[in-house]
C-alpha cells in the first residue's frame, strides 16, 4: 500500500530534521551539522566528550555569534541551552555561580530586581554566559570595565582528556586565559563564577549627542569617558568621510521609585520570516538612516530610560536578523589603533562609495585595560561594526578591500562576527594564536577555526 511505503520513508533516520537547523545570527554560512547533542544535565557532558571522535564537536549557546565561530559544518554541536541553572549567589558580594547555558536575560530577570546587574553586556541579552566567556564579549562600558572575562572569577571546564578542570586567575591560569575568548575550543564550560555589579534599579540616565564628523566623535568620546560609564555611537555609514551619527552615553540611575513592567522588552514583535532581499537597497537604507539621525538628533539631551531600551534596543524586535533576507548578512567589526584614525575614514569612504552599507553602524572607543583572554579581540583603539546583507561576490569583494585597510593600519577583526576573514588577516589580528593551540581540547573544533588556521594546519598540529 502506498501509505505503507510513505511510512517506511518517514521512519528513515533524518539527522538534519531531528535537530532542527543550527545557524549563526548572520544566517551565513548555511552550515549543516551531522548531529546535535542536547544535554540537559551537567553529568552528561563527560560521556559526550568521551564518545566523540577527535575534532568533532563544538559547544553552542544561543547562536548569537554572527559568522561561523559557533558552527561546526559537517560535524557535531553540543547545544548547551538546557544547562541553565543558577548554582549559587552571594548576596553580600554579588558573586553568581551558574551553569554555562544561563542567558544574560535570565540573569537580569532574577537579579536586577535584587539590585544587581551584569558587569559587562553586549548589545543583546540573548547570549549565554558560556558564549560571553568564549567570545570575551565587550559592551558600552569597555573603557571602564574591560571585557566580560575580567569579571569571571573562576570557571569549571569539562575537558575530554582530563575531566572537570577548575581554572581562574590563580588556579590553572593559562587554561583560564585560553578559555576566555577561546571560542569554545578549550572545552565545554560547566559553570562560571561571575562578579555582578550593584545598581539602584532598572533605570538609566541617558544622553544623546549628535555629531557630524569623526573628530567631533573623538572629542565627545574623550570628554564622555570620565563622566559616563557607558558610551557608544551610531553611525550613518552613507555619509562617507565625515560621518554623522548619534553619540549615546549614560550611567545607571539612582531612581528607584518608578516601576518597570515585568517582562519588559521580552515579548516584542517578531519578524516571522526572511524579508525579500530587494527591500533593503541603498535608497531605503539611506532614507532610514537619515530619518533615524533626525529623529534622534531632535531628542538630544538627557533623559531617563529603562535598561532594556538603553542596552538592548534591537532585542525589541525578535529575529531582526531575518531583515536581511534569506541569504543572511555579514557583520564586519574591526578595531583600528587610535593613531590611525585616518583608516576609519578610509573604511567609511569605501563603504559609502560601494553603496552597500546598512543601518547598523556602530562606533566605540575601547579602553586601555588589557583583555583577559589569549584570543580576546578588544584592544586600545576605535572599534567599528557594520552590517552587510549577503549579495554574493560583490559583498565579499568590498569586505576584502576593507580587510586591506584594517591590516595596513595594524588593526584586527572580531572572530565572533566573522565568516570570511583570510588566515593571513587572522594571523595579523592575533599574532600569538599559536600559543593558544596547546589548550584546544582534542575533541573540539569549529568551522571558524578550521578556516582561519587552514593555511597553518600542519604547523598547528605539530605543536
Amino acid at each position, binding site marked *: 500500500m502506498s501509505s505503507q511505503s510513505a*511510512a517506511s520513508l518517514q521512519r528513515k533516520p533524518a539527522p538534519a530534521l531531528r535537530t*532542527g537547523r543550527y545557524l549563526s545570527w548572520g544566517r551565513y554560512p548555511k552550515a549543516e551539522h551531522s548531529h546535535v547533542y542536547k544535554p*540537559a544535565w551537567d*553529568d552528561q557532558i563527560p560521556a559526550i566528550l568521551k564518545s566523540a571522535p577527535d575534532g568533532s564537536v563544538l559547544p553552542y549557546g544561543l547562536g548569537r555569534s554572527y559568522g561561523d565561530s559557533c558552527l561546526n559544518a559537517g560535524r557535531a554541536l553540543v547545544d548547551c541551552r538546557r544547562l541553565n*541553572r*543558577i548554582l*549559587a549567589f552571594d548576596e553580600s558580594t554579588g558573586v553568581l*555561580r551558574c551553569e554555562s547555558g544561563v542567558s544574560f536575560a535570565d540573569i537580569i530577570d532574577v537579579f536586577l530586581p535584587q539590585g544587581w546587574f551584569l558587569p559587562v553586556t553586549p548589545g543583546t541579552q540573548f547570549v549565554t554566559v558560556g558564549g560571553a566567556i568564549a567570545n570575551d564579549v565587550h559592551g558600552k562600558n569597555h573603557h571602564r570595565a574591560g571585557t566580560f572575562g575580567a569579571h569571571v572569577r573562576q570557571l569549571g571546564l569539562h575537558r575530554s582528556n582530563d575531566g572537570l578542570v577548575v581554572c581562574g586567575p590563580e588556579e590553572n591560569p593559562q587554561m583560564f586565559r585560553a578559555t576566555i575568548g577561546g571560542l569554545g575550543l578549550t572545552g565545554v564550560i560547566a559553570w562560571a563564577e561571575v562578579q555582578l555589579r550593584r545598581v539602584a534599579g532598572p533605570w538609566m540616565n541617558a544622553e544623546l549627542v549628535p555629531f557630524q564628523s569623526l573628530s567631533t566623535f573623538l572629542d565627545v568620546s574623550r570628554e564622555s569617558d570620565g563622566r559616563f560609564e557607558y558610551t557608544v555611537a551610531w553611525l550613518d555609514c552613507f555619509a562617507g568621510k565625515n560621518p554623522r551619527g548619534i553619540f549615546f552615553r549614560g550611567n545607571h540611575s539612582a531612581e528607584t521609585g518608578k*516601576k518597570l*513592567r515585568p517582562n519588559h522588552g521580552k515579548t516584542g514583535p517578531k519578524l516571522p520570516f526572511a524579508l525579500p532581499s530587494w527591500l533593503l537597497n541603498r535608497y531605503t537604507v539611506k532614507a532610514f538612516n537619515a530619518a533615524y539621525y533626525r529623529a534622534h538628533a531632535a531628542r538630544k539631551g538627557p533623559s531617563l530610560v529603562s535598561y532594556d531600551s538603553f542596552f538592548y534596543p534591537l532585542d525589541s524586535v525578535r529575529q531582526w536578523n531575518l531583515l536581511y533576507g534569506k541569504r543572511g548578512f555579514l557583520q564586519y567589526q574591526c578595531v583600528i589603533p587610535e593613531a590611525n584614525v585616518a583608516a576609519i575614514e578610509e573604511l567609511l569612504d569605501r563603504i559609502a562609495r560601494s553603496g552597500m552599507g546598512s543601518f547598523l553602524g556602530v562606533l566605540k572607543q575601547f579602553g586601555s585595560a588589557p583583555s583577559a583572554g589569549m584570543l580576546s579581540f578588544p584592544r586600545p583603539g576605535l572599534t567599528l561594526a557594520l552590517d552587510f546583507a549577503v549579495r554574493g561576490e560583490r559583498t565579499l569583494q568590498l569586505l576584502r578591500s576593507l580587510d586591506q585597510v584594517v591590516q595596513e593600519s595594524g588593526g584586527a577583526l572580531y572572530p565572533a562576527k566573522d565568516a570570511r576573514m583570510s588566515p593571513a588577516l587572522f594571523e595579523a589580528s592575533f599574532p600569538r594564536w599559536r600559543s593558544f593551540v596547546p589548550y584546544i581540547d582534542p575533541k573540539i573544533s569549529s568551522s571558524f577555526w578550521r578556516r582561519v588556521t587552514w593555511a597553518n594546519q600542519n604547523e598547528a598540529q605539530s605543536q
Partner: protein
Amino acid sequence: MTMTLNTRPATLYSSASRVSPMRKIVVLGATSGIAVEVQRQLAQRGCELLLVARSPERLAALESDLLARGAKQVLTCAVDLALIQHHAKLFEYVCHSFPGFDTVLLAYGSMHDQKDSETSVDVLLDELHVNFVSASAILTLFAADLEQRRTGCLAAITSVAGDRGRRSNYVYGSAKGALSLFLQGVRSRLHPAGVKVITIKPGPVQTPMTDHLPNAARFADPERVARDIVRALERRAPDVLYTPKIWRYVMTAVEHIPEKIFKRLSF
C-alpha cells in the same frame, strides 16, 4: 567560599500576579523536561516545592536554581519511583517533612523505541511499569491522603498518545492511556471530597525524552506547555488539559476516524 541562596522576592517590578491557591507542591519526576519548566514558573510565584527524582546531583542543581528564582522552600528526595517498594517510605517522608502540601504533580515517564518493545517483552513491561503501574501506585497513596484531608489537587502528565493506539507508538500510548483512565476514575472518586484531579495531555514536546524522534525540532516549546500546566493548577479549571490547546481538536478528529480507515494509517 561559602555561598548563600537568596530568596528575597522581586520588589522593583510592579507585578500583576495573583496570590495562587497552590503554595506547596510535590513534584514526582522533578528532573523530567516538562517538570523542570513547571518548577521554574512555580518558583517565580514563590511556591514551596518538594522534588522527587532519581539523581541527587540533578536534584541539588534544581534546588539551588529554584531557590535563586524565588521558591520559598525546596526539599528534595532522591528515589527511583519505578521501585514501588520505596513508595511507602517516600510518602511517609513527604507527609512528615512537607505537611499540608496542596498539590501533587506526577511528571515522569519513559519512552523507549517502539520497535524495541515490539521485539522485547522486557522493554514492553518496563514501559508499562514505569508509565502506568508505578505511576498509579504512587498516585493511590497521595489520592487517599488528599481525600482524607478533603483538599488539594492531584495532577499527572499523560499524553495525547494515550487517546488512540497508533502503529508507531502504541506501547507508550497504551501505558499513558491506562493512566488517563485511572485518573478519570480517581477524579470521580475524589470529587465528593472536593479534590481536583487534572489529566494533563501534552502533544509532542521538545524534551530530552523526545529528542531522538523525527521532527523533534517542530515539537512544542516546554516553556509554553509548562505555562498551560501552571495556569491549570492555579485556576483548577479543566479536568483534562490538552497542551498546546490545538491537540484537543486534533485528538477529537483522530478519535472519530473509523477503525476501518485508522488501521491503515501509518502515523
